[in-house]
């Protein structure tokens, strides 16, 4: 996804203290930040407060915004930092623990792709369960790469890994997904065939 054309201009206006430009930037990016936040933490209040908190921080420190190259990755990495600090404070867990083990809400529904007609609840459940085997990190990188269309270097920055690591993690995530899908889809197709032959 391309940056919005007028964005760099708005960004410069913010540095000069233009409140209208700031609100425009907020409104352009709030849906993306809200979705990302809600996937990191299902706690809506926490997400709203986090977005609020770092937008105020951006405004307060707007003099230093000139150094920001791409806005979306900058906003995403900022939000992630705030949410993680809050989650850490809440759960009193160490940073490393958070970085390694967290959940990211991204429920694929491959049945909608593979099975054109309405699939049974049983089939859907089987697929959902299989999908749950993906880790939070795998789902997050898929979200950033395919939903947000960020570059690998941007993903690396957000997820606090190397660019090489970002490539590897994406590849591994797709691999896992294929494996899960391969098995599940075969199972689902079998189920369908059994149902059809009756």
């Amino acid at each position, binding site marked *: *996804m391309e940056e919005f054309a007028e964005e760099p201009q708005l960004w410069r206006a913010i540095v000069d203290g233009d*409140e209208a430009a*700031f*609100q425009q930037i*907020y*409104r352009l990016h*709030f*849906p993306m930040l*809200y*979705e990302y936040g*809600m*996937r990191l933490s299902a706690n809506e209040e926490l997400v*709203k407060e986090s*977005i*609020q908190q770092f*937008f*105020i921080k951006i*405004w*307060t420190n707007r003099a230093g915004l000139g150094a920001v190259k791409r806005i979306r990755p900058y906003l995403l990495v900022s939000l992630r930092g705030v949410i993680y600090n809050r989650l850490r404070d809440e759960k009193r867990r160490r940073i490393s623990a958070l970085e390694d083990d967290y959940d990211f809400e*991204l*429920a*694929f*529904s*491959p049945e*909608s*792709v*593979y099975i054109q007609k309405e699939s049974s609840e049983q089939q859907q459940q089987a697929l959902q369960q299989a999908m749950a085997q993906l880790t939070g990190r795998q789902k997050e990188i*898929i*979200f950033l790469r*395919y*939903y947000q*269309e960020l570059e690998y270097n941007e993903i690396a920055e957000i997820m606090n890994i190397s660019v090489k690591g970002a490539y590897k993690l994406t590849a591994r995530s*797709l691999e896992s*997904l*294929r494996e899960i*899908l391969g098995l599940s889809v075969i199972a689902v197709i079998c189920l369908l065939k059994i149902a059809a032959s009756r």
Partner: protein
Amino acid sequence: MSEQYKNYGKQDFLEDAFFLAYIKRTSVEAVRFWEKWMASSPANIGDMQAAAQELRVLLSATRIYPSPATTDEVWEQIAGQMAVSTMERNKLRRIRRSLIAAAAAVLLFIIGSSLFYYTGNKTIATGYGKTLRIQLSDQSLVTLNANSSITYTRRWWGGARREVWLTGEAFFDVTHLKKDSLPVKEGERFVVHTSHLDVEVLGTRFNVKERRGVTLVGLTTGSVQLRWKDGRQTMPLQPGEQASYQAATGEVHKVVKDMNEVNAWKENRLVMNNATVGEIIQLLEDNYGYKAVLEDPSITSRKIQGTIPVKNEDNIIFILSGILKVNIEKKDSLLIFRRAN
């Protein structure tokens, strides 16, 4: 442009932004291009379709959108704090100064309102058919009859005379503050102001009624001094005495009266001892807001005896019609007295 895609494998398609735009349908150009490309039956169409299938699975998760209300709500919060942070930067000193001013204002307000609370006047009024008991700051008790009002000081300080202003009717049970045999001090006096005369007491129980230009003061216990506003005379009252003053004529009468009868309204009773129907109708008008219409005006001079419980006015009207042998019709605020057939 087509050239480069000839050698694409599945992985290349997966990483291609233009291909992703086709799957996501975010670009008309991309959709047109890839549909045309597929129609040209390229050798690697299998890889392309596998990648498309995989991307569709990747993108199959339900998206999360904030409601417009949420978007606005969070912005309101941010805007609110922006205002604060801007002020913090530029006007910190001014704020500190205005904070001091605000604190001073709050302090003044507290002092002022407590002064008002402790010295300010309060007026309480009753509607038709309602009585009210009020305790004053000196523990004196006032029972306010219907359609009456009283103004008093919220709190009296030691040396000041206790004063209240009355319209209508009230029974006073005044706390006796004089505990010594020294001459009476101002703070020991209690004064009820009415339109024409003041009732001065030390500590007693008495009834004051001012209606239709007639002031009636009936003393139950203790002693009171009546003082006319024009300063022309004072008059002491003994327990069991009732003074009446006609404003129009200046007539003053003092009669011995049964104080149970005078004070009966406090217990929701109406004691009639040789009372005329005219007097009772006046009571109904004064305390309940009725206007009486008499088919036979001569009944006003009839006298009746007895006690009527006045819990509610319908009761009075019912009993009165029985005693007088008339039909009393209630029409809004009109009471129509008709001859019984």
